[in-house]
């Protein structure tokens, strides 16, 4: 599966566009979640999120941690609380990113979570723990649980997975906005990628283009022989081509693309790149309701032949949304690599959103093409062209 280097701070444009994703949307999501909680006889949920894995926390609250993690406490009835590992002076800013009114600062989330749960009368309750990103720091988790000896804990890490599979209209709108931003970045990047330029200089140009357009976060992997994260050690100069994986987060939602920029006349490279695009197009034809994820894999195997094994290391298809990688996954191995407990769904349905990517490694060079799509009744719709 593809991974970019995770940044220490989500430092891009940090706002809540309440016209794009209004508060009523979160109330609707909360109602759905509370029905699920009732079915499981849960008195409350404790949802962990951090700046690496924030999807479930964000889905209900719109808040996304900028540095360190935090929890949302979602009782079966009554107000949600956010307990965040931030300074108390950071609370007013945190409140601009969420509709939740009760936002608290903590530098010991485990211990303070226990206090908060006691305050809400949940110290003898049946609580669901949601940590789908497996990020709750172990000492903090132990501290919280040990202070609540009468609580019955249920691990419900996958609770959100089914309801986040099919995107709601405003999620599609947010992802389309991310896709349009990404398309502008992909188009603009061509001007920066010139033979002889240092890789990190080009990364700086692409990064700025995305940030100037209001991206919340950016992931870049690039190279001629393999995909590398930005590093001062990757100070080589661009030669005949440059393969780039780009993911942009905007208003919490991700879109990703892969492009190869060929800088010299090289018929072989151009043919390989055209082939990568053809394979993605063939896979995208499977993006229709009721088709199976296996069908995408079958197409990739058939079309890529001997190149399939190398391509599959980077992942060929996965869901995308509040996470760069989320259900549906192509197979259990892909899911496990990102910490998901299952593939999520084996069949596609309308308004699922899927990233497809093909890497072809040949003669010591790598070529990449990829795109993000919405599954519609009429077939795949690129989020970059929406």
């Amino acid at each position: 599966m593809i991974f970019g280097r995770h940044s220490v701070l989500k430092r891009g444009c940090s706002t809540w566009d309440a016209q794009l994703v209004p508060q009523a949307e979160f109330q609707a999501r909360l109602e759905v979640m509370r029905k699920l909680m009732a079915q499981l006889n849960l008195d409350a949920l404790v949802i962990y999120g951090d700046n690496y894995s924030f999807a479930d926390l964000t889905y209900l609250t719109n808040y996304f941690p900028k540095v360190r993690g935090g929890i949302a406490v979602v009782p079966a009835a009554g107000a949600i609380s956010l307990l965040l590992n931030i300074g108390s002076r950071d609370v007013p800013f945190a409140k601009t990113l969420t509709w939740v009114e009760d936002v608290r600062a903590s530098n010991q989330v485990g211990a303070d979570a226990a206090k908060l749960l006691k305050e809400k009368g949940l110290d003898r309750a049946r609580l669901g723990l949601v940590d789908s990103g497996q990020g709750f720091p172990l000492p903090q988790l132990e501290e919280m649980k040990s202070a609540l000896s009468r609580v019955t804990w249920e691990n419900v890490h996958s609770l959100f997975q089914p309801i986040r599979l099919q995107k709601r209209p405003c999620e599609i709108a947010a992802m389309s906005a991310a896709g349009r931003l990404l398309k502008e970045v992909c188009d603009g990047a061509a001007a920066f990628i010139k033979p002889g330029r240092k890789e990190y200089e080009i990364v700086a140009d692409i990064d700025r283009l995305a940030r100037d357009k209001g991206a919340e976060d950016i992931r870049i992997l690039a190279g001629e022989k393999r995909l590398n994260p930005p590093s001062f050690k990757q100070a080589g100069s661009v030669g005949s081509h440059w393969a780039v994986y780009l993911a942009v987060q905007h208003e919490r939602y991700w879109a990703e693309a892969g492009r190869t920029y060929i800088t010299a006349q090289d018929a072989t490279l151009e043919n390989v790149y055209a082939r990568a695009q053809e394979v993605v197009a063939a896979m995208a034809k499977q993006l229709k309701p009721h088709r199976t994820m296996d069908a995408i894999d079958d197409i990739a195997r058939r079309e890529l032949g001997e190149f399939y094994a190398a391509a599959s290391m980077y992942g060929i298809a996965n869901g995308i949304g509040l996470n760069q990688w989320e259900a549906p996954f192509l197979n259990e191995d892909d899911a496990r690599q990102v910490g998901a407990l299952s593939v999520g769904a084996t069949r596609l349905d309308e308004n699922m959103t899927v990233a497809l990517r093909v890497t072809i490694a040949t003669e010591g060079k790598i070529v990449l093409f990829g795109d993000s799509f919405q599954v519609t009744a009429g077939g795949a719709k690129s989020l970059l062209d929406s």
Partner: protein
Amino acid sequence: MRDNGLQTLLVHDSGRHNFLRMNYVAYLTDFISVGPETILLVPLDDQPVLYLSPVWDIPRAQQESWVSDVRPFKEFRSRLPNVMGKVGLIGREAMYVDLYEEIVKSLKQIPVNAKDILETMARCKGPFELERLRRAAEIADAGVKALHDDARPGLKEFELAAIVEYRMRSLGAEDNFGMVVANNHNQALHPATDRLTQPGDIIIGEITPCIGGLFVQICRTMVLGEPPAVVREKYAILHNAMGLGMDAAQTGAPASAVAKAINGAFVDAGYEKYCRPPFMRVRGHGLGCGSFAPGSLEEDNQTKLEEGMTFIIHPNQYLPETGYLTLGDTVVMTKTRAESLMRSSWDIYIKE
């Protein structure tokens, strides 16, 4: 390891890079992982093995680190039952519960938390790290200059932040704990919003480029246009506090001495209550990925400042008349005292 009776060390990293925490795998290998599972297995009397995901990143690990034996993470699972003797674990704090329980089960023992071995080893930077930190400091200074050169009314906050980021990435910075915000009365530092900057805005920044996994931080304040006299007057308190903090940072002194010196400057100026939450808490801190020593500069931190420690001293302060103002330098402890790694002036920068 011998001193602690350990036959094997397991050093873990989760790919969740945090500039307030040490990246133990990077410290030992000079490789910064991107995937969620990385473990360096260090036998007492044999070569280390680096296990990581994703598998496509193995060639980069082989190129960037000195460890020659790099393998897919799933091979770690089959190796575990064969690990004998007393085992130490470093990086448990960032480990997820299932992996920890799997390790305990496979080892048939609870590994000793051995993080102090590396925390102690790493607390004073050596020449290799200082070379990178000095380069990062030059880049940080360049980021500040770019902001001075290009900031103007009409830009959005996130565009101001992008100016700094662009300059620093162009010079090789890999990451940045960067917050640049603008307002005529800033409440606090935070990631950039879409607010349009106005004439008279005070721009504050906490700029933290990373080179080779090591961060330096610089904090500065600038104003778009001539500020009211009160801004210069109150900023002078920060300037004074910065000097007092630097003077207090003597080798062998406790970290608390720096915090006390800085707080003293604000107490003398009548701002005692503003030295406590919700306004302020720490007067600087270590910078992670490398060692976070000496920790947070607070009045109860008795950690002795040692030659080679690097950390930021920042008398950043919210003041009711001006809002939040920032000033700070990353310093290195020499044989006798703290020396700044930065060259940018401490003066408030006025952009005409």
